[in-house]
């Protein structure tokens, strides 16, 4: 039976008031704690996802950010049908994920970590052939996709090596290829570059970008590497303590996160932090280099003042790094009273 596409509209992913609660068992440490737990086990419900709502358009790439335990992975697992929601509504490619219909599973993929689909003791090519059979991929499409992936991911020379003998980066490339061999229309990528070196991260990013463009695929990506997010996503969803706290583009996130721009100075004569403090906040001085944060609305005025009043060799104005924006955003929320706790990873 195909999914009920009514209400899904044109969205590739439609989420309304999505909720997920876990029962967590608690035990005091030590022998006595074990005895008490044996006689009467304490448990409580933790709300990992608390009424999340959003839509993703076909072909859209969205960065899904949040601190550890915020509910990112739980949300992705519900969107891919691995977890059943406690409440709310989800439609992915027009299907209800929890039903795990074959037609739905042929349209999505979820990549988590580097030991997922590949058969450990056999060459990666064997795993690809298994996926070809399972997904019923016609020979011509299989050959074309393999050629495309081999070129973009640089799989030449590693397809016939035993998986257990591949390097971490090589294995991740093969995992990605295995996960996308059936050309899914919706990709959920959970930390796809974690543990990889810089070159390999770049290679994975380029592959995802290329796949998105070639196949107009919708991509939802979580990553602790902000370079992944800034390179791939135009839209950012931020989740914290199970709630979406931001939905918009990177520039707006920067504004919401602090509202300031970073001014970098190269000075000809040293200046003290007190001198620079008149022009902005968060002043850092390192010899003749200095950095300070200036409110967006006052950037022109303060830059002109800096050039006029100090002996400046060079001045640049930049958006703050996304890391600092996120730190300030979550720092501000952590300070608010009555916030629910974050759930333990990897729930």
């Amino acid at each position, binding site marked *: 039976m195909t999914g009920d596409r009514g209400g899904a509209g044109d969205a590739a992913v439609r989420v309304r008031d999505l909720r997920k609660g876990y029962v967590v068992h608690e035990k005091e440490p030590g022998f006595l704690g074990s005895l008490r737990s044996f006689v009467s086990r304490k448990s409580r419900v933790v709300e990992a996802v608390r009424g999340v709502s959003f839509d993703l358009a076909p072909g859209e790439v969205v960065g899904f950010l949040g601190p550890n335990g915020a509910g990112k992975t739980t949300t992705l697992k519900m969107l891919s049908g691995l977890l059943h929601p406690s409440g709310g509504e989800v439609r992915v490619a027009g299907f209800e994920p929890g039903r795990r219909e074959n037609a739905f599973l042929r349209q999505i993929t979820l990549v988590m970590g580097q*030991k997922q689909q590949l058969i450990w003791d056999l060459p990666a090519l064997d795993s690809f052939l298994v996926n070809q059979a399972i997904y019923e991929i016609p020979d011509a499409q299989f050959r074309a996709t393999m050629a495309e992936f081999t070129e973009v991911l640089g799989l030449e020379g590693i397809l016939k090596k035993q998986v257990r003998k591949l390097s971490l980066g090589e294995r991740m490339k093969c995992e990605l290829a295995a996960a996308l061999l059936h050309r899914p229309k919706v990709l959920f990528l959970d930390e796809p570059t974690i543990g990889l070196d810089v070159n390999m991260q770049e290679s994975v990013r380029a592959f995802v970008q290329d796949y998105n463009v070639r196949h107009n695929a919708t991509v939802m990506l979580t990553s602790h590497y902000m370079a992944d997010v800034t390179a791939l996503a135009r839209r950012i969803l931020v989740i914290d303590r199970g709630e979406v706290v931001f939905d918009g583009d990177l520039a707006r996130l920067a504004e919401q996160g602090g509202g300031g721009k970073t001014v970098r100075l190269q000075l000809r004569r040293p200046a003290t932090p007190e001198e620079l403090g008149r022009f902005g906040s968060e002043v850092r001085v390192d010899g003749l280099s200095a950095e300070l944060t200036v409110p967006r609305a006052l950037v022109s005025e303060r830059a002109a003042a800096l050039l006029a009043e100090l002996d400046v060799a060079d001045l640049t104005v930049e958006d703050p790094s996304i890391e600092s924006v996120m730190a300030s955003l979550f720092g501000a929320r952590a300070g608010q009273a009555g916030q629910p706790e974050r759930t333990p990873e990897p729930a």
Partner: protein
Amino acid sequence: MRALAFKARVLFATRFAEMAEYRAEVVIWMLSGTLSLVMMLVWMAQAAAAPGGQIRGYSAPEFATYFLSTWLVSQLLVVWVSHELDFQIRQGTLSPQLLRPVDPMWLHVASHVAERLVRIVPLLVMVGLFTWLSGASFTREWWAYPAALGLAALGFSVRFLYEYAIGLLAFWTESSASFQEVVWLVYAALGGMFAPLAFYPEWVQRVAVWTPFPYMLGLPAQLLAGKATLAQAGRGALVLLVWLAVFWVVRLIVWRVGLRKYGAVGA
């Protein structure tokens, strides 16, 4: 239909290649499952010391034939799926399998069938060796062999399904391994691995006939030993077919309900 045949062929070929990587371990594993052979030595010694050289109609060579047959059939019934499911559910490695449009059960079926093919040659060599050493002598009735093989195939299917359902209990419990061990004990006892079923108290025999175990293990062994008839094999096959249907439904229900409990932790 062609797609289904292609899937089955690729899955089997891949799993066979995987199992062939572990051929040495498969042989060692076979040697570890020698309870029947130990019991063979015990009962042969008892029969040799008994008045008339027999216990309840079994001479030492007949005990050798029975227990060697039990060992041979038990090797065809080996199932490890509950351990795998227990691990996969607790560690979350079931998740990647749930993302593919195929019931993960068929991947396990392919692994077990492929392993049986890797096992068959060293198994026959070992049976030949133990036959020569113990003085066992198998039946010369040709029909007993396909009948025993058919019962073993049905028995494997029944055992696979109930072990699968046991493994799925990990959706609810910390570990399902303890359930598996209890059920194995009943399987070994009522299957006749410790002694022929006729040696047990009558009330045990009356209970045992309502279970699948005597028909999946003891009956094919008795066929090979020349101590069972074709009619008994036919009745045994019918009983196993009923249990197959029961466990098919049980597995399906436990799977569907269990998936709603799945936490997908760890992966």
